[in-house]
């Protein structure tokens, strides 16, 4: 049933898609020769009112997702919000603007005074974080179109061994760091550039991006939401906010009875199972902890220094530095064939002095930025190692406050939840409890 709704909604929205394309702020001229204008791959600019409407829709979707995760505890309703978000934010709005990419807009605004960030971009950045701070990662559950399209292809999810998940879990930090660096220095928005799913939303992308997206979706059939769990840079921020959330989705509406029925319910590995004290001697653990804490500043600063050494190749991701480098090589070796960018620049009237000066300024920014990036990565690595050394005793099955996407999948597995819904008799619950004892 829910799958039918997916199909219907998507295809019903197609005419709306075409209509939206026609609503352009700057309509193009009509050609009398019968020339057919090409359909654009990138979204056309919209009126401000419609942009604010998008913010309203985002807020409404987040609110609904929060309600469905915490109050009505309904996977079906959450799925409905997810389908709507996929259709609206994904196919209708063509994946732009999205909170995942808005990290870059904010980074650019913070470090470039000439960039005026739209209020709507700030809203898209802040609203999901705000909701995560109070209600957990409800954005991931039912609003993010990238998550929704991955969710749609989950067929036979296999459990990723937790040690692999721990290791891959570091990638989003690195992605976030690099994305902020490149956005802040004006090199580009790599999150948007390498968004594997936007090509599907827009029915058009480069061959490589289509292949990347298809591969990601294919992987997603067996590894649930691979992008969300192991790449999404915005997920890092949501993770932090979610850990502080006042209210968070729980598997059971009351006390956990350790029935283990929810153990395999989460395809994302976001359920913490009961654990006891580790077999390792407490003194030994404390010693390991102390070593890591002492090494923390060393790792952090060392990482900062290493990244700063890479500032030169990193800076070449910025077009101005790349062009200056190109011009310099061509000037030094006249046998080198001039590139198209070089020819365009040379015909522009801008002097090479001005170009080299600008490139030098950007290089200096990269020097500083690389230090900060390295320190950030070193700090995250150290904290990760410390976290892996800490082992808390836990009773019952609980959602991981940082990693749980609040998707509501696990609710129906809980017998207490089933009693709450009236799906099973309270007596059946008692017999389950007795069988466990």
């Amino acid at each position, binding site marked *: 049933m829910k*799958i*039918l709704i*997916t*199909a219907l909604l*998507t295809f019903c929205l197609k005419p709306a898609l075409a209509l939206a394309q026609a609503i352009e702020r700057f309509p193009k001229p009509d050609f009398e020769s019968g020339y*057919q204008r090409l359909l654009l791959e990138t979204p056309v600019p919209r009126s401000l009112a419609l942009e604010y409407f998008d913010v309203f829709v985002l807020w409404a979707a987040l609110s609904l997702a929060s309600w469905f995760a915490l109050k009505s505890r309904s996977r079906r309703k959450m799925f409905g919000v997810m389908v709507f978000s996929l259709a609206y934010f994904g196919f209708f709005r063509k994946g732009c603007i999205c909170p995942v990419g808005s990290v870059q807009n904010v980074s650019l605004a913070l470090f470039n005074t000439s960039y005026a960030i739209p209020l709507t971009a700030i809203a898209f950045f802040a609203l999901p974080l705000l909701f995560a701070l109070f209600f957990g990662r409800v954005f991931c559950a039912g609003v993010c179109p990238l998550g929704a399209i991955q969710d749609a292809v989950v*067929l*036979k999810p296999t459990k990723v061994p*937790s*040690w*692999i998940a*721990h*290791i891959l879990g570091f990638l989003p930090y690195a992605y976030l760091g690099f994305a902020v660096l490149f956005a802040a220095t004006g090199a580009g928005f790599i999150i948007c550039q390498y968004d594997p799913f936007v090509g599907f939303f827009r*029915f*058009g992308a480069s*061959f490589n991006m289509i292949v990347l997206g298809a591969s990601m979706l294919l992987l997603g059939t067996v590894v649930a939401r691979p992008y969300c769990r192991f790449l999404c840079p915005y997920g890092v921020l949501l993770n932090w906010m979610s850990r502080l959330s006042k209210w968070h989705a729980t598997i059971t509406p009351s006390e956990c009875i350790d029935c*283990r*029925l929810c*153990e395999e319910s989460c395809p994302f590995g976001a359920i913490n*199972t*009961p*654990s*006891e004290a*580790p077999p390792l001697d407490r003194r030994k653990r404390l010693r390991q902890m102390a070593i890591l804490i002492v090494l923390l500043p060393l*790792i952090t600063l*060392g990482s900062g220094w*290493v990244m700063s*050494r*890479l500032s*030169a*190749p990193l800076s070449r991701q910025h077009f101005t*530095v790349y062009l*200056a*480098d190109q011009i*310099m*090589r*061509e*000037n*030094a070796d*006249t*046998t080198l064939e001039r590139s198209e960018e070089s020819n365009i620049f*040379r*015909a522009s*009237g801008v*002097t*090479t*002095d001005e170009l*080299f*000066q600008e*490139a*030098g*300024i950007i*290089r*200096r920014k990269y*020097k500083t930025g690389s230090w900060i990036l390295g320190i950030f990565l070193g700090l995250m*690595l150290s904290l*990760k*190692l410390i976290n*892996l*050394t800490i082992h808390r005793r836990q009773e019952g099955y609980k959602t991981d406050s940082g990693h749980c996407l609040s998707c509501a999948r696990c609710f129906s597995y809980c017998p207490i939840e089933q009693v709450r819904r009236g799906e099973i008799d309270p007596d059946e619950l008692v017999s389950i409890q007795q069988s466990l004892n």
Partner: protein
Amino acid sequence: MEESKKAQLLYSIAKRVAVVALVFATILSSLLIVNYIQTKSSDPLNSAALNRLMLELRDNQDDESLKEEIRALDLLARKAYFVNQWQLRVGGFLLFFFVLSFLIAVKYMSSLSSQLPDFSEGYNPEESWENKLLARKIIIFAGLAFFAVALLLSVLSEDDFIDNTSAGSDIQLAAQSYPDIDEIRSNWPNFRGPEGIGLAYESELPTKWDGGSGENVLWKTNIPLSGYNSPVIWGKKLFLTGADNNIEMVYCIDTDTGTILWETEIKDVAGSPAEWPKNSKDTGIAAPTMATDGVNVFALFGTGDVACLDFDGAVLWAKNLGLPENHYGHSSSLISWRDLLLVQYDQGSGGRFLALDTSSGETRYDIARNTDISWASPILVNTGERDEIIMNASPDVVSHDPATGKELWRVECMEGEVAPSLAYADGMVFAVNEYAVLVGIKLGDEAELLWENEDDLSEVSSPVATADDVFVATSYGTVSCFDAKTGERYWFEDLPNGFYSSLILAGENIYLTDMSGKMYIFKAAREYSLVGTCELGERAVAVPAFLHGRIYIRGIDNLYCIGE
């Protein structure tokens, strides 16, 4: 039971739908990939057929049937491209439909066949701790490996940008910056324009003015000290020199207003002769034209004084090259290449070819030239394979590598005391001297003398060339056109006054000033076609500068800016 049968039936239907959808999706994907590969390998707008026709059109620009054929082929190519785009789009939509159908069918199948959880394996509470330990170990090793790789990369990666900070200033790159060929061609940096070959990269130029009445004369400025050198321009600044009464002066004039922005005397140059040489009045001391590299300007005088000034008129360095042994007076002009100032210094006791560091004046190389005295100026061209600086003198036309001074080739073809500079076009160099010969030399690893002609030879004025023709003007008033490849003369015109100034090719026209200051404008073609004549109102021998849609003409006393 019935429910079970119904469930089985639905499962079976879903399974069939899934299989069919998967098959169609697979076929469609394959077709789209093949389509993409085909499109990628053949660029419809860059087809061999179209390119061939375009090449044909270059030589037959009036062929209307050819143009129609190109248009038709182009339209066909564009239609094919957009049809392909439509196919891709429709294919994408269909693929989306089948993939969606497949997903819906599979999910429906899984909803009909849900399984109970398997608790046959007991729960291992130590498993999570063991996983953590393993993860920690791997992260530590991976971190160390990344550290090592990053260090290696940072050492291996080339970094030509060297930071050079000083308090409060931006980064200055250690890499020397000098103008590239497009910047050079956007200015008028030396005698006879960029590269010194008499070519103006301007097409919209005035063809009508009158210095006497002021028609199309934007401004006129008196230059206090006279000189036969020609103006050079970079940006909005025009430079020239004047000399008289033991004063050597460099002037900077605003190209928009004609205002003299500054004038700087070159004096107290170490080694400068106490008494000026007694040069011919037709040459004077300020005959060599200045040069500029966009950062500084360079001036050379008949005393051997050479100086470098910044754009604000401050002398950065000055030195003396030795008093030239020259009975008329030295007049070869300067030209710069990257960070070198190149000087053709031919004189009675043997010539020299010098390269001075533009920032310090330090001599980078000083090569003896086995030549007679000359007054020609070097040209600096890029042949497509390398830069060459080529000089005209007797007995040889010689080419050097400007970076090192190394001789590249020489052709023995000249006689007498040479004054005209060379012309260059389409891989050919043209040299001329009165009472000697006009020659065409084909460049290559070994240059080859292709032809000689002894008609209408110039004494002072330098020729100009197109890919097809060479144009020569003489001091006795003739202007001639020769075939660039064969030397065959197509036409000559006998005009009232002689020419010292050189021909300048601008677009389709050639500009040539006679000694009375009258400008002849004619077509660069194999038939003489006069576009117009314009009076300056005073004598002129210098070569005008052509820039920003204007013409800057130096008369004997005044500098004129002609524009519409």
